[in-house]
């Protein structure tokens, strides 16, 4: 190899969303005189590329950074390092005026429908706000028309418009929240645990609604969840995260058929099954290491049955396994 500098490849535009080397660190509050400045590593060099029309799932346990990833992509959180691209355009660090038209195309559905709707605004005011702000060219009549069309599309009754959130059940509120995300006709939606706060019989309703909307509108989802059985049903591809890093990334079917990373296997093994039998053997307590003082090597090493000295010394990078096309960050998997 000559000393020639490798040109930085431009981001591929066949990806609707792409992150490169994304890092988010939160400085933790300390006394202003203290010498140590502890930092929480919420995301550690995360590279994901989401294809148009797919449901890209991110799974992991609390503290793995899945929510931070969603919030950083949507712009609620500024990355400490790294880049976020939307349709080939870099959107982090973009000024608000340039970003405004892009905001129409990116929306978010939140976990808790009891907190995601302003309790003092009626349904119409909640839904019309994104249109007023992002599509000021629309007339009052067009605004009304859009709101009503979206309400109908999400299975909300038109009579709900003048009512306040506290008059609705959790499932109805989540429909309203989904309607709000759709009023600007976005292409990409971050759904952060959209069903985990709902009752079992309602979860299927909301998942079906999301499936229908995707088919009708060609939406791309970034679906954040802790529930692997939902991923298996709903996801196109899935990224498994652990302590701010992607451990495994694969097509959903591949991941469930041939999980490569020991952590993925642990997760799959932990799902309670209707057939029973998986809780029969006792398990050793596994605890997440403190994300403030991350171990030097692989973050999963302290819990990993395959861990060696190499794992404790060097952090594995994501690599592609030729057999299945799975990307995995592990020294010991083939």
């Amino acid at each position: 190899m000559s000393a020639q500098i490798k040109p930085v490849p431009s981001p591929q535009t066949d990806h609707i969303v792409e992150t490169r080397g994304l890092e988010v660190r939160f400085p933790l509050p300390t006394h202003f005189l203290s010498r140590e400045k502890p930092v929480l590593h919420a995301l550690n060099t995360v590279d994901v590329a989401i294809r148009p029309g797919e449901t890209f799932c991110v799974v992991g346990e609390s503290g793995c950074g899945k929510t931070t990833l969603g919030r950083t992509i949507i712009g609620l959180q500024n990355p400490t390092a790294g880049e976020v691209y939307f349709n080939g355009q870099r959107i982090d660090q973009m000024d608000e005026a340039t970003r405004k038209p892009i905001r129409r195309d990116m929306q978010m559905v939140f976990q808790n429908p009891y907190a995601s709707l302003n309790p003092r605004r009626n349904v119409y005011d909640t839904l019309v706000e994104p249109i007023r702000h992002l599509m000021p060219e629309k007339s009052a009549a067009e605004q009304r028309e859009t709101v009503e069309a979206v309400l109908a599309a999400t299975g909300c009754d038109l009579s709900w418009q003048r009512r306040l959130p506290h008059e609705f059940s959790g499932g109805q509120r989540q429909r309203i929240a989904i309607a709000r995300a759709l009023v600007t006709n976005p292409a990409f939606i971050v759904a952060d645990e959209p069903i985990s706060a709902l009752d079992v019989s309602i979860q299927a309703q909301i998942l079906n609604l999301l499936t229908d909307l995707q088919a009708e509108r060609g939406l791309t989802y970034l679906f954040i969840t802790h529930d692997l059985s939902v991923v298996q049903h709903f996801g196109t591809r899935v990224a498994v995260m652990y302590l701010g890093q992607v451990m495994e990334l694969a097509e959903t079917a591949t991941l469930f058929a041939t999980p490569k990373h020991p952590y993925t296997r642990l997760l799959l093994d932990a799902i309670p099954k209707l057939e029973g039998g998986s809780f029969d053997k006792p398990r050793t307590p596994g605890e997440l290491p403190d994300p403030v003082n991350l171990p030097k090597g692989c973050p999963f090493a302290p819990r990993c049955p395959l861990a060696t000295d190499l794992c404790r010394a060097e952090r594995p990078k994501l690599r592609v396994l030729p057999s299945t096309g799975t990307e995995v960050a592990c020294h010991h998997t083939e």
Partner: protein
Amino acid sequence: MAMLEIDDLRVAFPRGKTEEIEALRGVSLRLEKGERLGVVGESGAGKSMLAFSILNLIAEPGRVSEGAVRFMGENLLDMSERQIRGIRGNRISMIFQDPMVTLNPVLTIGTQMIETLQAHRRISRREAHRLSVEKLKMVAIPSAETRMDAYPHELSGGLRQRVVIAIALLTDPELIIADEPTTALDVTIQAEIMALILKLCRENDVALILITHDLGVVAEVTQKLMIMYAGKCVEAGETRAIIDAPNHPYTAGLLKALPQNAEPGQKLYQIPGSMPPITNLPRGCPYHPRCSRASDECRAAMPEIIDGVACYHPLQSVEEIA
């Protein structure tokens, strides 16, 4: 004689000055020694109410309006506060969703365990300490001796719930009531905790009432199952039998709606609507507005529970609901 027998238990809350609404509307169950029962329902179905009323812990202004809870033949609801304290936390232990309900944040784990033991047993502090460490080891807490001096906030959520289980086991209870013990925990931690509870119940012949919304957990852990809807038991029986061939349309709907029971990418089966609030129940079977098999009979009167199912049109298999 069954270890625990609940007969037509009803819990009522006052509404306004004269009215009362029933949050638990006549639930009966039997539990033998060492038996594990799952109670499944959506939020507001009355499953936690059931757990609390067993130990006569219904908060004011609610009250048990009818029924009996017989533990070893004695009605807990007739007991004085003093008598019931000899049973609560001693022969019947509770595990809550939030470990901090049980744990006092300003006392060390050890202090709390020793005090709990000494409240129920006449033993020396040294002996209490020894037993506490033993229980901590039993729930696989690493370096149990040093954890005795730890405060609850120094432990992670999973470890805290383990400590709560250790406290629940301290007095060698005959029955543990666990109200959503793993709902706040991650899946891998949930698996550990549930595996632990299962193992401890089996080894020590402890009976368990596990309250949860997760049919998967129930299938893994329990032998008997009770499905609750709007303050009533709609189906009860052997866990395996119900999961393999549910008789009540609601149970069948819940099972069929699970993503693991659908083809990937296909739409899920969905139960229409949502559970009515206890303050506004329809006439007849509370499930009839959501049920595809509802008839005039269902709209007229609530079906009695016969052969473990409260339905006029019980199913033979899941396939029967469209």
